[in-house]
């Protein structure tokens, strides 16, 4: 069985990239064997790609719950430990609980969403990766893995679809 290798096809624009991905599908390359790198976000349906799965919202939601619990602890828990009588107000006043709980919930939501983006994207990562600087100049790169036996056939099809260059993807220091 031939060895599988990762290749990088570079396209000038969205249109030829979409055509190239269509060709890859036609040649039996599955979505799992592909990844698109681009300088701007492109809606998956434009390239006929499945939507990427993200856990950022879930992690953020967990953060919001933790933040809410922390807020409630601060305003309700601490007076329980150190009761303070102020201006005839109850020791556990509801309006203040709402204010602090709101702030801590939002802090938890945003902090964990931020961390979630790092965790889900594998940031920070300074190891060499398959990438070319032209991507941030607006090119679209399609990374795909195929058996080395099919290398020429696939490359030919991608060039016909409008790829500027096709070749083995080399991991490089970013």
């Amino acid at each position, binding site marked *: 069985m031939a060895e599988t290798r990762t290749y990088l096809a570079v396209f000038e624009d969205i249109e030829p990239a979409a055509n190239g991905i269509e060709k890859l599908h036609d040649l039996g390359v599955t979505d799992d064997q592909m990844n698109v790198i681009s300088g701007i976000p492109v809606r998956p349906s434009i390239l006929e790609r499945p939507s*990427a799965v993200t856990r950022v919202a879930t992690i953020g939601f967990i953060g919001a719950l933790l933040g809410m619990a922390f807020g409630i602890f601060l305003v309700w828990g601490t007076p329980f430990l150190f009761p303070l009588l102020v201006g005839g107000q109850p020791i556990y006043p509801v309006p203040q609980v709402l204010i602090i709980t709101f702030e801590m919930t939002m802090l938890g939501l945003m902090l964990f969403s931020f961390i979630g983006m790092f965790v889900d994207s594998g940031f920070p990562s300074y190891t060499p990766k398959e990438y070319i600087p032209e*991507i941030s100049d607006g090119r679209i790169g399609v990374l795909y893995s195929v058996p080395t036996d099919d290398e020429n056939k696939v490359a030919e099809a991608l060039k016909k679809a409008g790829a500027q260059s096709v070749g083995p993807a080399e991991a490089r220091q970013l």
Partner: protein
Amino acid sequence: MAATAEPLPRFVPKAGEEEDPREHLMHDPRPRGEMNSMVLESMHTAGWRYWVVTGVLAFLVLTCLVIGWYWLIAQGLGVAGVNRPVYWAIFLVNVVYWIGISHAGTFISAILRVMKVEARRPFTRAAELMTTFGLVQAGISVFMHMGRVWLSYWLIPIPNERGLWPDFHSPLMWDFMAINTYLLCSTMYLFLPLLPDLAMSRDRSTGWRKVLYRILALGFRGTEGEWKNLRTAMTIFAWAIIPVMFSVHTIVSWDFAMATRPGWSSTVFGPYFVIGALHSGMSAVALVLFLIRSTMKNMKYFLRPEHFNLLGKMMLMISMAWAYFYFNDYLVPWYNVDKWDAILRDFIEKGPIWWLWYVMLICNIVVPWAILWRKKWRQTPWLMAIVGLLINVGMWIERYVIIPETLTINRMPFTWRIYIPRIEIFLTIGTFSLFLLLYMAASRLIPLIPVWEVQEGQEGHILRKVGKAQIPTVSEID
């Protein structure tokens, strides 16, 4: 990536015809590589004027802020003008002012992003930077106001053996939580959309800049998963930071409104402060955009009259809203005929510093209403910068009227005394200088224009032929 918009034929306007669509950034696309180069060139090119201004600002920071604050700490608050009955003075005027400035970034970036206002794209980062740097000045001013800064950790709600316990009944405690939440969240929100531009800078830099951007870009490549995560996080931030923004200045207003003093005890203070914050923040953005456009290379391509026009419309609306809330806050005590409220009103309008109140009204209402109604004037950057500056003067004075002037009149006439600032003047100059210095440093270190967002917008804009006309059309490609 070339924009998908069709090249436009030469536009020859006829009488009564619309403007050339190419006047709009979204309809005047350039290749991404060219835009990248333009932004990087603006970061790397610093003429002698840049260094002169930076040197002057650094000198002011050193003398007015560093030495001034050292003097304040060494001598105590006695070197400031605060004394009975005005214990809250310019330091807190500055706190409220800078928190107000910080609202612009969130408003422009988050609300306009949520509303999908396309013209926001080139100047969101310039506004977001104002949020972070503005909050830094607010934080510094709080510490100045405290005097004994080495005891500032007493504010933090941690168990302690000093017999002190942070009191969550106090609005000042809410303030601590809200401002820190806002500072943390707005800094993260600044960083998120910056990632792709840091990656772009990394790809085109050498030397120490390459090392810096490689570290900051975190290994971003622009894979589908990375974009999805980034967009999801940005959407969460854009929605979540809006209520936080409203809460922050509302809570700042409660620092005053919860006190049963004449001039402060008002139920309208929350929204009135929020609108005031937006008034000064939005105007400051116009001023800063003018400075960026005038002093940095290639910025005239990205920051165009259409952007000043958008800002001008928002400034006009906000000015009207501010006038509405101010009138509410003025009218109700006027009808109540409370003795102390009436004395305070007389003092503000007819007292020894009566002119401040009139300058405030002229700057905050008369100037914007007289100028911003006309599109041609809104599209004139230097005029917008002047209006922005005057509104900021007006809004700073408004905070001065609310805090030291109002505190002058209380229910114990024997304590009445006119507040005269002393070292506060130098420290105020210091914080303004530090804000500008940070901004100037940032302009050379991070791309002030979110190039990927501009390109994304340009990709989605095309001219569609409807009948005999070409109509600008937007499609969502993200």
